[in-house]
């Protein structure tokens, strides 16, 4: 099951640049939450702080509290443990190109020392089914490589790979921006189905997509969270003029 995420006074820097400033918000469990804002506003940095990926850059640092289901991920958990609990899907599908479809999905478990073949088979099948890819690849699991399938299939393979380690949270950084409309619709359907089991945070430049998939939406601007509210409220009657100006295309 998904867990809620409580962020308190989160600040992040790249070198001397203060990229996130005093972010406070509560992301409910088992819902899709969208983050929108112009390029460079800090939304991607924010999601990278939710799985401690931000700190992998030597000039980057973060301060503040991120409670994931009550667990303080900066104090009470290692980056490795957090990566298991928080899956991430990126803008461009990044399957391991030389690995088979099967090995792509099983890679996370194998890295964690999981060796039982029957159980691996089960997890691979379950994850590919969850990612709505099973029917399309079940006959080629070991024959085809991760790079040999279409872009949309690769993205769903990456989602299956993320789900295989049984995370509580799924972060998606513009997961459909490189995909055609049909593949995009499949990803959005997946988000709709997966949110009952996982907490999903999606960064998107496509506001219609945010409106379609997310229960709540946050608007970032210049490193600050300007507004966070129910998606219907954000897209019909936002409270802040800056949100309204952005979503109506008056800037950004």
């Amino acid at each position, binding site marked *: 099951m998904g867990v809620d995420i409580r962020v308190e006074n989160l600040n992040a820097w790249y070198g001397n640049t203060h990229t996130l400033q005093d972010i406070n918000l509560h992301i409910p469990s088992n819902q899709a939450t969208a983050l929108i804002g112009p390029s460079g506003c800090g939304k991607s940095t924010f999601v990278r702080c939710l799985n401690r990926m931000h700190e992998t850059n030597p000039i980057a640092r973060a301060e503040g509290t991120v409670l994931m289901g009550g667990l303080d991920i900066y104090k009470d958990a290692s980056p490795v443990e957090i990566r298991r609990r928080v899956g991430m899907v990126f803008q461009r599908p990044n399957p391991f190109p030389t690995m088979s479809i099967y090995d792509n999905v099983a890679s996370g478990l194998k890295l964690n020392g999981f060796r039982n073949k029957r159980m691996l088979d089960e997890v691979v099948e379950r994850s590919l089914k969850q990612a709505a890819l099973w029917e399309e690849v079940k006959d080629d699991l070991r024959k085809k490589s991760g790079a040999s399938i279409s872009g949309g299939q690769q993205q769903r393979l990456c989602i299956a790979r993320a789900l295989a380690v049984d995370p509580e949270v799924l972060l998606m950084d513009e997961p459909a921006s490189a995909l055609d409309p049909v593949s995009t619709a499949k990803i959005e359907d997946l988000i709709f189905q997966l949110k009952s089991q996982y907490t999903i945070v999606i960064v998107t430049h496509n506001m219609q997509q945010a409106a379609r998939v997310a229960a709540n939406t946050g608007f970032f601007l210049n490193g600050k969270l300007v507004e966070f509210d129910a998606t219907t409220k954000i897209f019909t009657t936002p409270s802040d003029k800056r949100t309204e100006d952005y979503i*109506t295309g008056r800037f950004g």
Partner: protein
Amino acid sequence: MRIKFQQNLDELKERLLIMAGLVEQAIQRAIESYTARDLSLCDLVLRSEPAINRMEREIDQAALDLLAMEQPMAVDLRFIIAVIRINSDLERVGDQAVSIASRIQEMGAFANIDLPVDIPKLASLAAAMVRKALQAFIEGDADLAQSVLLLDDQVDEMNADAFRSLSMLITQKPEMAPQALNALIISRNLERVGDHATNIAEDVIFWVRGSDVRHQTATLHEAS
């Protein structure tokens, strides 16, 4: 800035104002024809209806196109929704003008008698509500729109008074029933015009403030 989209929104507003001009003219002519018993004005009102209906369809189509092609949000979405609703209310005000003109034509077949009802006063209040609601739309002024809502009770009361006095007249002097009945319908038409003006004002408030104030008259009066 989405320049083309903004131009399309301006154009939609412009079209609605042309529609509003036609409707205001129709209601004004209907009122004048009552006051002056000028049946030629009634003809003009009846002949304006197809143009008003055509404009309603064109504005709806333009609004629908913008919704489909531009996927507007927030204030722009509320504006287009408000335009669609106001468009429909204006067309209905046009229908009321037509109904009034038809009643006046019918009254022309009978002798001109003094009726215990001040139709011109009721008409002037209802028309003022429409004008004020449209002014609020032109200026995006929610406060002005709010003031329109408070006028609706006056129109309702005048219509209720007309109902009482004309019903009594029909009972006491049945020979005046045809004239009284037509006046009763005109009074009711004008009360409806006030209702449509109220709707328009509520749509302006929705567009500007994002709040839905429909069916909240009691709350409004308590607040004022």
